[in-house]
């Protein structure tokens, strides 16, 4: 007996919808086993992880605070990955966006008007996009692998941020501690209600809407799909792979930059040596869980945010280590990828494999 893959004649629509759900179900099942092994009641643990965050207004708000950057970055990355452009340095682009956007509150502290906020977000997007332009340029001009260059640039951006907040931009009244002045007034993102939810989540929804239209209704979207699926076919159609590389990296970098300035001008309210708990990397899972589709990313971002919040709750309520949440995320991504196989292939069982193995010898 042997399992083999057989290519479907066309994509399975049913499986396209089912595969993320199947993956989540398998992850939950695996999670239950992990909890049981640790001696916990799996039902209680799963409740704390996945349901409890949704049961109070406060934690629901926190889910949206967390989901906003994940959706913004994930949406940009999904377009990238669609085009087979592997930007995995979103964390660095987020950091540069935060730094460039912070020029307004730190250098022009007295500029208090809604325009200041617009300028901050624009600069944030610009910072992220320009930082992503470097791997794009190196890819197009020198054929340097964007996976490695964009990742190396994450470390560089974080060290640069570290230098900025310990050196030139440290709060002069802060006893030489590594942090900038606290942002105020129009240099902070307006919140919705009195909680911590800020307009970042609205921006995220708008971005998702724009990208949905872009990918399904415009020539650019078509170009990205064609180049992603088959660069050769794209070339025959007259599309330029280089232009797509530029477009994707600038877009995803810009969105990561907005997420960065959103964190700094939102929940943080100042520039610090650490501004993100790895949103740029988690957003990679978000993009895949969302099936590289902007609307899917919206749901995936919320889903991942729930596991984050649930993971924190589990630490306090159940004494489960925070590593469990990380293992969950890894397993989830594995299952998504495995389940995606079902969209393109059908799994067949072969009674005898003799013939095949003879052929392969």
């Amino acid at each position, binding site marked *: 007996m042997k399992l083999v893959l057989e290519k479907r004649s066309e994509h399975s629509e049913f499986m396209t919808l089912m595969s993320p759900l199947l993956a989540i179900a398998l992850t939950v099942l695996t999670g239950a086993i992990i909890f049981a092994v640790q*001696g*916990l009641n799996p039902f209680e643990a799963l409740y704390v992880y996945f349901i409890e965050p949704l049961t109070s207004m406060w934690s629901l708000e926190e889910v949206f605070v967390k989901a906003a950057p994940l959706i913004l970055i994930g949406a940009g990355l999904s377009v990238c990955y669609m085009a087979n452009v592997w930007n995995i340095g979103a964390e660095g682009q987020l950091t540069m966006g935060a730094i460039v956007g912070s020029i307004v509150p730190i250098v022009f502290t007295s500029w208090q008007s809604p325009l200041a906020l617009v300028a901050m977000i624009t600069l944030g997007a610009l910072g992220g996009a320009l930082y992503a332009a470097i791997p794009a340029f190196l890819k197009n001009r020198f054929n340097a692998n964007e996976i490695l260059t964009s990742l190396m640039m994450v470390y560089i951006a974080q060290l640069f941020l570290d230098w900025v907040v310990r050196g030139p931009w440290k709060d002069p009244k802060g*006893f*030489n501690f590594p942090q900038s002045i606290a942002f105020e007034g129009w240099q902070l993102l307006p919140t919705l209600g009195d909680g911590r939810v800020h307009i970042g989540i609205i921006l995220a929804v708008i971005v998702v809407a724009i990208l949905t239209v872009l990918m399904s209704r415009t020539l650019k979207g078509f170009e990205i799909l064609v180049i992603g699926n088959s660069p050769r076919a794209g070339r025959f159609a007259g599309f330029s792979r280089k232009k797509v590389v530029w477009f994707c990296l600038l877009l995803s970098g810009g969105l990561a930059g907005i997420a960065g300035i959103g964190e700094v001008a939102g929940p943080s309210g100042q520039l*610090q040596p650490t501004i993100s708990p790895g949103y740029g990397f988690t957003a990679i899972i978000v993009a895949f869980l969302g099936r590289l589709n902007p609307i899917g990313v919206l749901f995936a971002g919320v889903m991942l945010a729930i596991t984050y919040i649930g993971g*924190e709750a589990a*630490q306090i309520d*159940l*004494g489960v280590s925070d590593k469990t949440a990380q293992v969950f995320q890894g397993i989830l991504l594995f299952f998504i990828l495995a389940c995606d196989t079902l969209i393109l292939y059908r799994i067949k069982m072969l009674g005898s494999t003799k013939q095949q193995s003879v052929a392969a010898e």
Partner: protein
Amino acid sequence: MKKILGFAAAIALSLAIVPASAADKLKVGFIYVGPVGDHGWSYQHDQGRKAIEEKFGDQIETTYVEKVAEGPDAERAIERLARKGSKLIFTTSFGFMEPTLKVAKRFPDVKFEHATGYKRSDNVSTYSSRFYEGRYIIGQIAAKQSKSGVAGYIGSFPIPEVVRGINAFMLGAQSVNPDFKLKVVWVNSWFDPGKEADAAKVLIGQGADIITQHTDSTAPLQIAQEQGVHGFGQASNMYAFAEKAQLTAIIDDWASYYVNRTQAVLDGTWKSEDTWGGLNEKMVVMADYTNLPDDVKKMAEETEAKITSGDLHPFQGPITKQDGSVAVKEGETVAVGDLLGMNWYVQGVDDQLPQ
């Protein structure tokens, strides 16, 4: 196997804690920046947590959240503890300052204790240790024990606390050997054993025969042992990692402070205040002096006694800054404000402070 049992027991314990939310127990929460197993900063705070558990038994219950990143996530973690009914919350890293104040505003009946910060409010106290007192002692020991007259200092980040430590070390060393030299390497991390080890090797290669560190891993001491030189433990007693190399260690001991503050909340006498304790308050404790000749050991013990009694202040003038200008005149000590925000080196440090 013992490990696994211990792990299971820890889980069973934390499970046992949760349902027993008896109304009149005082809930005490802790926020750690690192893993409790870092054997350094967070580990020592967790020892403090265990101390109050032992001391107050059934009167209290404790919870902690580890590895909380300094940044937007910290606020939620603190708020969660407050919402879960903690009435006394210790936030144990500088970067939690703003989040602590924000949450404190929303929970006026909860008492907050923020370590190493400088902003207080009605329900937020601050506390820190005068680690530099210990640094002065190890500086003296280093100058006595070094044959090359050069020590290597592995720094984490150039923040005032670390700079203060470097200066105190140097002043201590110069009180024994005025020509003592100090080389500094910054590793840009509180905890990166690989890089700390590399830094230690580089410093030893450049002639340092005493290694001291303001980072939390045991790696530099292990390297010192391997290469036959000596060093000092940081934050916790690291003797088990380097029995031949550790001369002493500067131990952060939060137990007495945490017991006092918990007692104050139980008694209803808690007030917002700023505590900056050192050897005298037993917030800084020196580990056993080991691998030392008797006369050096005696000198170290005498210095420790003098600092404890207040007869000696490490930052007593005259002190000359690196650029040759006078920091404090004879007979004065460095002002508290200047100590808190220290961003200059004393003369003789072979490094330039990033500004």
